[in-house]
């Protein structure tokens, strides 16, 4: 392939143009009868290269942009969005929103945040939050492809049982967002992302296949791990699944690897979302100040985190409504100390927003996590496994069997069986079940292995007494 690919295919919309567009949209909305309005302008670029069995299989490079508008007429609200920035389209965006707002209901809780709640706006690069690094766009595509190729080659060379590959992919993305509203707030930030992953396939002597993957990602190419290390780790993670068998249906302790622990703990965030709380659609409803987990459990959401000079994947200067992000402790030593809310759900609950509004282009703001984590304990993962006579080490879960209304939890699982404190053999095609309310109280061990590989993270945990269904 040619190595002269351009780094940017989209229109080179500059910051001042985006800001001007947001201001125009707001002015037009107010003129058309809106009493309040909020505009978001987004621009992004993406690149991806998939290398499979040493050859470039797909190469994708593009940019896109969009504008979203939310208008209020008194306490009625509606929203519109468009990827078309032409004048007629912007006129339709404004008229559409105002027309739609007239058919919605008066809702006493609807509205933008109060003017005094907004913080200082920061520099477009996120200022001290370190969200944007130019090197992501500057790296030539050929170098990115080479990283993917080396990563896959390392995985394939690791063991003769690695015989096929789903490919190795290198991705970059940069985005620029401007949010502006009629209460005087405007802010913008850019974010960068780069990362690569590989998905090797191992085959056992009976022809049984297993796949797994591993990855590295950052906001700057300088912090990416070596492609060889990532490839070898992916190979190890794939090989350890070979020859998996089923186990008998039984009750046993379950150790969750950090990847799965993260999703179990993530349900604490979902259960604490203001939206689910005011609807009584969460097992945390009415539990503020109550013991909802063991004394060893402290869970935090932090929108301001900077790690090793790089902004976290969940870090941003302001949330989807323009409110400054912050650090919120959801559970402190087992006590539910905070719900997580946007402006609407906070008003419904008579509380203050925690700066967790998430905004798509259209629709009312939702609630989203920033950097969400379980505080680490002191034991190593090996020590946590060592205490298990007979139990399950879960490295993968599948399915949608989590009910946040009741806490009922039932998921497909695979991993390793533990015997006498040691990993004995791989297992698959089993389920694990329990209730999250009990599981959070029965976390008897927490690892010291908290590593942020994404916006949320959790160390290894061990939960006593889960039901395992197998043969």
């Amino acid at each position, binding site marked *: 392939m*040619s190595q002269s690919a351009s780094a940017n295919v989209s229109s080179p919309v500059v910051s001042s143009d985006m800001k001007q567009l947001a201001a125009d949209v707001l002015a037009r909305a107010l003129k058309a009868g809106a009493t309040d309005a909020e505009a978001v302008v987004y621009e992004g670029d993406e690149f991806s290269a998939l290398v*499979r069995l040493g050859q470039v299989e797909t*190469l*994708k490079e*593009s940019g*896109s942009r969009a504008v979203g508008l939310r208008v209020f007429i008194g306490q009625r609200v509606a929203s519109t969005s468009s990827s078309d920035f032409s004048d007629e389209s912007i006129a339709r965006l404004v008229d559409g929103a105002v027309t739609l707002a007239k058919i919605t209901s008066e809702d006493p809780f609807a509205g933008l945040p109060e003017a005094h709640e907004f913080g200082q706006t920061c520099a477009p690069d996120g200022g001290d939050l370190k969200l944007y690094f130019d090197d992501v766009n500057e790296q030539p595509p050929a170098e990115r492809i080479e990283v993917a190729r080396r990563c896959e080659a390392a995985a394939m060379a690791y063991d003769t049982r690695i015989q096929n590959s789903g490919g190795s992919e290198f991705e970059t993305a940069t985005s620029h967002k401007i949010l502006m509203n009629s209460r005087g707030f405007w802010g913008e930030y850019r974010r960068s992302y780069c990362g690569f992953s590989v998905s090797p396939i191992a085959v056992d002597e009976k022809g049984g296949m297993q796949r797994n993957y591993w990855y590295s990602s950052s906001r700057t190419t300088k912090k990416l791990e070596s492609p060889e290390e990532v490839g070898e780790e992916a190979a190890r993670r794939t090989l350890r699944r070979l020859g998996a068998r089923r186990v008998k249906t039984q009750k046993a302790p379950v150790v969750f690897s950090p990847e799965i622990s993260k999703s179990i703990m993530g349900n604490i965030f979902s259960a604490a979302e203001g939206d689910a709380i005011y609807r009584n659609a969460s097992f945390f409803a009415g539990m503020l100040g109550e013991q909802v987990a063991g004394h060893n459990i402290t869970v935090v959401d932090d929108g301001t985190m900077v790690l090793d000079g790089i902004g976290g994947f969940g870090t941003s200067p302001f949330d989807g409504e323009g409110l400054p992000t912050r650090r919120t402790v959801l559970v402190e030593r087992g006590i539910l100390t905070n719900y997580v809310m946007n402006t609407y759900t906070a008003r419904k609950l008579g509380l203050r927003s925690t700066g967790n509004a998430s905004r798509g282009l259209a629709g009312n703001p939702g609630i989203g996590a920033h950097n969400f984590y379980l505080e680490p304990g002191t034991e190593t993962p090996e020590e946590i496994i060592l205490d298990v006579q007979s139990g399950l080490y879960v490295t993968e879960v599948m399915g949608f069997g989590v009910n946040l209304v009741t806490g009922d939890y039932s998921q497909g699982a695979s991993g390793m069986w533990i015997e006498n404190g040691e990993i004995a053999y791989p297992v698959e095609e089993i*389920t*694990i*079940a329990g209730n999250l309310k009990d599981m959070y109280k029965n976390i008897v061990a927490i690892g010291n292995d908290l590593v942020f590989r994404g916006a949320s993270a959790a160390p290894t945990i061990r939960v006593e007494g889960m039901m395992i269904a197998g043969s």
Partner: protein
Amino acid sequence: MERCLGEALSAGGDYADLYFESVTSTSLGVDESLVKSASQGISVGCGIRVVSGERTGYAYTDDLSSERLLRAARTAALIASGPAKELMSGFRHAETPKSLYPVAGATSDAEIAAKLKLIQRADKAARDYDPRITQVRAGFNDELRRILVAASDGTFASDTQPLARLNVFVIAKDATSTARGTSGGGGRVTLDFFEGDKSPEHYAREAARTAILQLGAVDAPAGEMEVVLGPGWPGVLLHEAVGHGLEADFNRKKTSAFAGLIGQQVASSKVTVVDNGLMPNRRGSINIDDEGNPTQETVLIENGILKGFLSDKLNSRLMGMPNTGSGRRESYHHIPMPRMTNTYMLNGEDMPEDIIKSVKRGLYAVNFGGGQVDITNGKFVFSASEAYLIEDGKVTRPVKGATLIGNGPEALKYVSMVGNDLALDEGIGTCGKAGQSVPVGVGMPTVKLDRMTVGGTGQ
């Protein structure tokens, strides 16, 4: 467009296509009996693909000026390296196929009022169902997607695809417990669809009924047992257990547990499974796929024998197999790949009540949430949202939700009875693959599996 295709093949690709797409969508929501949300969106753009051997270059633009289109074409062209290809002369305009769905114009204000009325009716019906229903949220989402595909092989085809869906979510509460219930449906239909059997009241009562039922549910059992799946949405079993594993891309790359099994027994002889994109008004149906090919009915499994894969242009060419018109994509931001449409099992001869009667102790699962599959090792799950115990041939108590797990190439070998009551789902399915979502349908008659693992908490 011809200039653009020429530019796309300027570095010597074998094939190039342009995919123009315009989507307008509307979303309305009633929540706590208030119209709390109303939104509309417009997305317009073009994706340009260049294929060279097994390689694909892709670029898209949301600015349809010829300058931007040519720039995107040049970016996609970078995948190939060679002398420019001559372009064929002229496009082959496909005959207008018979349309599987009505085509509406732009949404009028009167229509928005009518949609609002539908969800307000749903809200009322759910609240009227039982005083224990404490929260109701009803939504109406629809879109109109216009596509046009022009390709260097002469393909020139367009389609206008409507899609509508009504959803109801409720919370029921009594002195001791809280439960949720959901329901919904739709398809490639106009608003009058919701005036027949599939009225807002139908969906509302269904959501309310399942929530009330769950208030009294006992723990689901754990372990291997006989499982009877009801008709309709439980067909998600087929989507996960076999459908994904039969998509041609995974089989060309030999990363699917089904690779190399064509002609072999992968299910009991009572099992015939098809993927059919031609069913009128169905959510998974399309007149043409997103590469401009007509869709069709494809037999995947016939009397237990694996018959075929679902393929697109790239994979059918590389594998030397027929193209089944299964090339789909989420939007112009995405590269097409083989996908399902409406996937279902054909009727058998058993009476549903005889199937229940034949079970001594087992699970009767009639409704499901989502499912997931690891196509490489074949393990799949799907999560029951409404299920009952079967004790001595009778359906007894409702149980809490539980995940069922199995192995794709093995699970359907345990099908011992197939009912004569084939039904398709209500029209709510969305399938995700490699980060792309597309609307699909599933279906099945009542089916008995002699062995399946149920992931409850009960002994």
